């Protein structure tokens, strides 16, 4: 069918298509963004092959390069020439790789650009080993020998199984050391600090009788004694863990000796089968969600950030739900409907649009400095001048976010209440129930899915909010979790780590952004998954609810 172009425009069909395109662009952006995060985030844990290149650095020099290909791009040969590089190829575009050579402590840099055309030979020897270390990032090379106190115990082919065996032993000892250091010595330090505060409090209150002081001194001596015992244990473990080392040949032929206590794991990606890689992948994912971060958060896991986020969100839910529901019930069921309630409703609605940073400023000024400062002055004079609650912490963060998400809960609950047909209220009242009974036995249970929706949306918002948290309690690295085995177990005054802030901090504040980037994608993916799941749940509950009430109305 021929359509006249002029008429086509005049009727506006062109516009319809443009509108459709605008929508498609929006949808594509969402899907594309989610895919981008998913691909990059998931890809991070897959064992990548390790390459060995003979690379022509200049006309006279051919280097051996060992490492992973981190990124690939096509650039104009012209641009490279302008930057002073020699490009032999006649083609306009050349391929270059961002090559991760690791070994930061040996070579200084762990990334370099490599031109595809200059690679003269590529090999993937199975014996190429990746050593993941606690410090300085990955190490690439050939394992040549395993040593015990400087003496070679295994060489050549037998070095690899020996290394695996010994790494397992070192890993066990290392986790013992961690346990003693973090849990046991941490607990002693914590009790010591409490003793100090107790003594200081007595001094302030004037009841520092000799007996009391003696009791404190005795307790301190006891703690000191158990500390000494632990310290001895630690020293012994340290000497055991430092026994072994491994000699690795790096790409320039140098033999580098690595102490084994600095190695987390060793693997040979080129020798791994698909299922080996899969197992390795799962192990890495587990490490990611369950381990503490290493290397200024750029490696290891993000467990403290997950824990902090979850705990903060739970605290916030505990605060926001009752208040939000009470406010909604008051507005909908008790307050006299009129211009005042309408005004309040508009104001509450608008608060959802107030920038989150404003809540952060309020939280810092009011909760932290004003409330926290006064709490410190009243209840914790012994800790002065170090603030206890007068400094950002998880409680204040939860309160601030509770305030931020209050409108969400109020609006959702109110909507739920308004959807309940008045016939139900009237029926209950007609049967002689009081208002509160009607509310408690019929209205609230019926509105509970709406409250649930509100709460889920609030949680989703709180989990992704970062700007206010930067002011009221989030830190890049918290020394201890807000929940641990030391009395009183819940430490609401402590600072915490947060997934969203982790993304910001590692992605933008860390010294080695390039190395940290994959981890940031993985963290972002985790956060997105949590939030999308929560939102989908809220949407599902809401749809279900609509169906239910539609049935009620008829």
């Amino acid at each position, binding site marked *: 069918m021929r359509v006249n172009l002029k008429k086509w425009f005049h009727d506006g069909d062109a516009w*319809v298509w443009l*509108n459709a395109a605008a929508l498609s662009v929006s949808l594509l952006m969402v899907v594309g963004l989610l895919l981008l995060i998913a691909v990059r985030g998931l890809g991070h844990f897959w064992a990548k092959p390790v390459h060995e290149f003979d690379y022509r650095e200049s006309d006279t020099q051919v280097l051996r390069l060992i490492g992973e290909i981190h990124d690939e791009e096509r650039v104009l040969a012209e641009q490279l020439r302008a930057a002073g590089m020699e490009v032999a190829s006649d083609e306009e575009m050349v391929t270059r790789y961002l090559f991760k050579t690791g070994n930061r402590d040996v070579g200084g840099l762990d990334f370099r650009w490599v031109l595809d055309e200059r690679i003269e030979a590529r090999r993937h020897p199975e014996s190429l080993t990746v050593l993941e270390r606690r410090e300085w990032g990955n190490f690439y090379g050939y394992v040549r020998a395993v040593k015990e106190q400087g003496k070679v115990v295994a060489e050549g082919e037998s070095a690899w199984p020996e290394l695996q065996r010994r790494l397992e032993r070192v890993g066990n000892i290392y986790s013992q050391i961690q346990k003693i250091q973090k849990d046991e010595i941490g607990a002693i330090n914590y009790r010591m600090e409490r003793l100090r505060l107790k003594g200081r409090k007595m001094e302030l209150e004037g009841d520092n009788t000799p007996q009391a002081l003696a009791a404190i001194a005795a307790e301190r001596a006891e703690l000191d004694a158990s500390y000494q015992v632990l310290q001895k244990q630690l020293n012994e473990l340290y000497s055991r863990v430092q026994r072994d080392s491994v000699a690795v040949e790096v790409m320039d032929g140098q033999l580098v000796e690595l102490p084994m206590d600095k190695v987390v794991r060793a693997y040979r990606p080129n020798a791994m089968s698909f299922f080996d890689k899969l197992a390795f992948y799962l192990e890495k994912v587990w490490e990611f969600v369950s381990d503490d971060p290493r290397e200024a958060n750029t490696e290891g896991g993000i467990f403290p950030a997950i824990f902090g986020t979850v705990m903060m969100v739970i605290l916030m839910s505990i605060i926001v739900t009752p208040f939000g529901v009470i406010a909604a019930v008051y507005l909908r069921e008790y307050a006299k409907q009129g211009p005042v309630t309408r005004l309040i409703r508009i104001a509450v609605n608008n608060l959802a649009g107030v920038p989150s940073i404003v809540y952060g400023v309020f939280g810092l000024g009011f909760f932290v400095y004003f409330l926290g400062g006064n709490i410190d002055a009243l209840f914790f004079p012994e800790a002065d001048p170090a603030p206890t609650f007068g400094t950002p912490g998880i409680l204040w963060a939860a309160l601030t976010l509770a305030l931020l998400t209050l409108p969400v809960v109020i609006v959702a609950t109110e909507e739920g209440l308004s959807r309940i047909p008045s016939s139900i209220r009237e029926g209950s009242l007609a049967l002689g129930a009081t208002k509160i009974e009607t509310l408690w036995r019929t209205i609230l249970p019926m509105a509970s899915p709406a409250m649930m929706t509100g709460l889920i949306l609030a949680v989703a918002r709180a989990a992704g909010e970062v700007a206010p948290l930067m002011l009221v309690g989030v830190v890049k690295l918290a020394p201890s979790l807000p929940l641990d085995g030391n009395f009183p177990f819940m430490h609401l005054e402590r600072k915490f780590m947060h997934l969203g802030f982790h993304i910001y901090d590692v992605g933008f504040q860390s010294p080695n952004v390039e190395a940290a980037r994959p981890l940031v994608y993985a963290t972002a993916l985790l956060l997105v998954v949590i939030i999308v799941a929560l939102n989908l749940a809220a949407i599902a509950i809401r749809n279900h609810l609509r169906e239910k009430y539609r049935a009620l109305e008829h």
Partner: protein
Amino acid sequence: MSANPPLFQPEQLLRLQRWRLLKDKLARHGIAVGGLGVIFAIVLIFFYLFYVVFPLFIPASVERQEGYTLPGGGGASLHLALDELNELGVRYTETGEAVYFRVADGEVVERYQTAIGKVATLDTEGVIGRLTALADERGQALLVHHGFRVTYPDDVRTVLPRFEYPYGEKPLTVDDEGSVLRLLELRDGEERMTIAAMTADERLLLNTFAKESSFLNEDEVTLERSVTQLEGVDIDVQFLLVDPGQRHLYAAAANGELLHYDISDPDEIHLIERLHLLAEGTRLTSLKFLLGGYALLAGGSDGSVTQWFPVRDAHNVSTLQSIRSFHDQDAAVVDIAPEHRRKGFLVADGKGRVGIYHATAQRTVLIENVADEPLSLVVISPRGDYMLAEGESGRMYRYRIHNQHPEISWHSLWEKVHYEGYAEAEYIWQSSSADNDFEPKFSLTPLSFGTLKAAFYAMLFAVPLAILGAIYTAYFMAPGMRTIVKPTIEIMEALPTVILGFLAGLWLAPFIESYLPGIFALLLLLPLGVLAFSYFWQQLPRQIRMLVPEGWEAVLMIPVILFLVWLSIALSIPLEQVLFGGDMRAWLYNDLGIGFDQRNSLVVGLAMGFAVIPTIFSITEDAIFGVPKHLTFGSLALGASRWQTLSRVVILTASPGIFSAVMIGLGRAVGETMIVLMATGNTPVMDMNIFQGMRTLSANIAVEMPESEVASTHYRVLFLAALVLFMFTFVFNTLAELIRHRLRKKYSSL
């Protein structure tokens, strides 16, 4: 059941009834209190922000305390100083005595008689200096240090005098000819000390003492003196000043004429300029440095004070320029006392009045009638909260000063200010620095500008996409597709902005940098390509067209758009070579003079636009979907096409709703923090260039708030920024909400 008869016993029933009613009542009140409490908590945010900001606008006040006659006697003071805690003061008398006295009652605590029995003239180093040079009548100067030390005998804080001779108790020779020194100016630095002096026989001498510390004892310093006589001093010098860097010497006469010398090399002193500080006919009665020793304050016989400081011109030569002047007192200025930690100063005049000023804010804070007699000296305490003024009759007047935030004025917050070291008046935000002499620059203009700039680019991207998309969803889309689209858009709204910011900063910004021509090609190709394709689609046979039913056009568009995006990116590099000589950024800079930052407004616009689209989309969609159907049907029945109905009937009806959607979207863009924080360089520039970054109010708060000292001016200004954001979004949202309310009413009446 038989064990449960109470229901049927009347008094028990009554009790139960009462209990139920009581519960009901309790619940009613409980919920009312709770509900109102929550609403109150929300209102609290506004009031708390206001409460913190309010002190910025409280006018300063002074509190008179009882005065006394000069402690220790001995004629008028030559110099006065106070300790940090306003407990002890010290004054130098003409007889060469330093008298320490208690500020509260004027009781003399200690007196130190120096070797100089009759002081010809005296000068104290710098604004906050404690080193004083006393000149005798034989061309010599004695250096003394008046200090204070705080001790805690029996846990009671006590301030005690501490009087020392840092360069020995023997006076230093200043004039080899031994004539009387009429004027003295002292400057002490790490490596050298300068003493400029005017002798009674009108020679201007410049003494430079190079310092050499001995090997064994760091504190033992020997002075190596050299002296130069300045040539060409043809004015009757009454004021001498040397800057802290010991590079500039200013000599001024009573008629306001000033000679500006470069003394950075004592062997090659030369006159830089000669100028008049005051208007014709006004006599110069006081000349002092402002804190930092950069700006000069010239007090005139008409009560005016003019601030001058060196400004670099195009040839890199610094010459003095008159920056601003204050004229709120009408008697001759007798003394100027600069504050020790801020760019403020006190001015005492011949009618017994003292004015408090702030230079940067260009603000006359307060004028107070201190005495009924002319004053001769005024001094401000190091913390700026106390003042002593000496009258000509020898009486000491005491005032406590409440002046927390003099640096804030409309001028300093919103207008162009000429700051020290800048060539001209500018809008600058620079809140803190390690240097004590730092002049804080609290202009909110560049931050507000950055906020609006970011919001502008975001809206530029978001508004068309969101509104067009919403129109399609609400009006043309098949219901089956709606059930997919709406949740997707809701997910889009829920995506944490930190993730958008992270992707914008680490993925999008480098991507745009490498494919800049492609991005612009896409802007052009996308609408054209879509139109071309849809026109082509219309020409296809009916059977093929029926494969995609009406209302599913958006699905058909997806592959088209993907292809167009791929095409633009693939064309990017060839385009760059053909049109821009291989490097578009270099071309922009060299040919158009436009600078290119990797993290720029374009990136922010895209990322923040992404965040704003769902907000605008949902509200617009609501408004259009809510338009009563019979309007549409009427129009269609009259023969209008789908689009004609939409554009002439539906959109017109829904336009207030669309407007409010845009406003709410704008509110969100203005307050967004993480995206701008991560996707721009956060430099507070005033520049509409799309390839340059910005610093927004919200990002600024996020960056600076944690480090700001509680209750300081900086802290309160940040709260003010938060309040501005709050008000802005609140007003916009309320307006939008009211419009929507009215719209809903209109719909229901239709």
